[in-house]
């Protein structure tokens, strides 16, 4: 479905040293530096998959999305999506994709959402009968009936995002690119958006490529993660694999009857202790959890123990550190 092979892209960025003299000088002569946005990125995505594309700011996520959606032409590499090369067959190709930029709107600001939808129908030349069917389905599943006749500028961010996603699906695309679809949304709206994404993926088999900084999105949606940092692909696999590779730490919270001696636990980092409570961090590569608990049980009268796997966000932070991003 999607085959990306060795794409690279670099940008020329004008150097802008501060100071008035440099500002004047730069009018006549500018020095440029080449910034490699992405370097030799390859992956394949089969139809119907949800892929989380993650990485810190400036890692090259948007550049990749722009290349895959036909906006930008890469310097090197090939990309074949549904048999098209996105940047060569732009007008034919873009009929098959939907793109949502969480930070920007694709709707006309001052008119009711419905007007925007009708204009999109004409832009994409959607036949009337399939437009009606799709619209009905979207109104129902995205719960748009009450907001569709409201001008976009009067909608809340969560309402607007539902309308944005609806707008990108009117022409029944096979691939949906979602660039930070949950940014700025409250908890309820986030969950609504996630559920909808899951639903269209399951029911209509739409392939979804999702970039986000919200790891809960990834955990809820993505079977597969592509991690990019400083323009290179660092990890390609599922969340379990990511946990196995990096998430070897467990957090143990132990509650016990009052104990005023210091705890003796080798190979364990103690995050905090009080008279009757300790939070420990265990690296399962150095020692295992049951040993730690039995050592603990020898020293104190345990009341309760909870063990938590490392949250995915910590893993990502750890990976960023490991790769020095």
């Amino acid at each position, binding site marked *: 479905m999607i085959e990306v092979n060795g794409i690279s*892209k670099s*940008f*020329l960025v004008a150097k802008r040293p501060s100071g008035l003299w440099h500002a004047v000088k730069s009018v006549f002569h500018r020095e440029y530096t080449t910034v490699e946005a992405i370097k030799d990125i390859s992956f394949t995505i089969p139809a119907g998959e949800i892929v989380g594309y993650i990485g810190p700011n400036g890692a090259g996520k948007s*550049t990749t999305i*722009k290349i895959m*959606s*036909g*906006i*930008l*032409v890469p310097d090197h590499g090939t990309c074949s999506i549904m048999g098209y090369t996105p*940047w060569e067959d*732009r*007008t*034919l190709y*873009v*009929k098959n*994709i939907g*793109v949502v*930029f969480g930070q*920007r709107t*694709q709707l*006309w*600001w*001052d*008119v009711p959402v419905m*007007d*925007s939808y*009708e*204009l999109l129908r*004409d*832009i*994409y*030349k959607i036949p009337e009968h399939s437009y009606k069917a799709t619209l009905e389905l979207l109104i129902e599943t995205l719960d748009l009936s009450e907001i569709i006749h409201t*001008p976009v500028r009067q909608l809340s961010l969560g309402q607007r995002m539902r309308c944005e996603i609806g707008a990108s699906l009117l022409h029944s695309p096979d691939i949906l690119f979602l660039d930070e679809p949950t940014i700025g949304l409250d908890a309820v709206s986030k969950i609504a958006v996630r559920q909808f994404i899951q639903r269209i993926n399951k029911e209509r088999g739409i392939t979804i490529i999702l970039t986000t900084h919200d790891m809960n999105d990834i955990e809820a949606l993505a079977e597969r993660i592509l991690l990019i940092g400083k323009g290179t692909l660092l990890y390609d696999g599922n969340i379990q694999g990511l946990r196995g590779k990096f998430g070897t730490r467990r957090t143990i919270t132990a509650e016990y009857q009052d104990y005023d001696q210091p705890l003796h636990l080798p190979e364990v980092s103690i995050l905090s202790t009080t008279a009757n409570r300790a939070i420990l961090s265990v690296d399962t590569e150095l020692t295992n959890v049951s040993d730690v608990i039995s050592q603990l049980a020898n020293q104190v009268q345990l009341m309760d123990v909870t063990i938590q796997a490392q949250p995915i966000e910590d893993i990502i932070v750890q990976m960023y550190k490991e790769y020095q991003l």
Partner: protein
Amino acid sequence: MSLYFRYMIILLKSQLQYRASFIMLTIGQCLTPLTSLAAMYFLFERFGQIKGWTFHEVALCFAVTHIAFSMTEIFARGFDTFPSLVRDGEFDRLLLRPRSTVLQVLGSKFEFTRLGKFAFSVGLLAWAMMQMPTPWTTIKLMTLGFMIAGGVLIYLSIFMMAATLSFWTIQGIEIVNVLTDGGREMTQYPLSIYHQRIRRFFTFVVPFACVNYLPLMVLVDHKEAQSWYALLPLVSVLLLIPSIGIWRYGVRHYRSTGS
């Protein structure tokens, strides 16, 4: 073409959301040509005529120029305000839609408030036409139509070329206003009153004379007029073709540099 009108309707609806501001701007837009016209009137009152041109002949010239310019502003404002489309990243969105970029940029903005200026100029044109001593033949009416259409095409071409510049630089395209606003101010008057170099520039480089001064001579039965001058406005197409080419080149550049 029908999509273009769809764009127009949705943007007209948007504009009408702000009714008071729309009405005020529309009325205000009449004032600019009115002041220029008043200046021209007093000039003629003092001197009677300029290089053999009478007031109503110059008013005809003035009206044609302003009709063409205000029509371009109404229908092709998208190219005039294009730098902001690039700056806001909205141009990326246009590239995601399965339609030509020229059509989408044209459809991105219409300046309906220029209708005021347009209506004023049409009124002036009607008045000037009635003052003409000779009758309006079919040929003359066609020539008049060509002049307006040709003017629109020239302004559109300049707007497009200026818009293309913004793929390279966001600032510095004010210089282009020398051609649009400057050209408009110049061609309010018959070009024969200017220095020869200026006349040549506006004939052979930016062919305003071909849509304005030269065919105007046919309209007023000027003694030096040649009948083929009536067809000269078609020259404007020769400017539009390279403009579209340059535009396409700019879009390619944008997509390969992403600036």
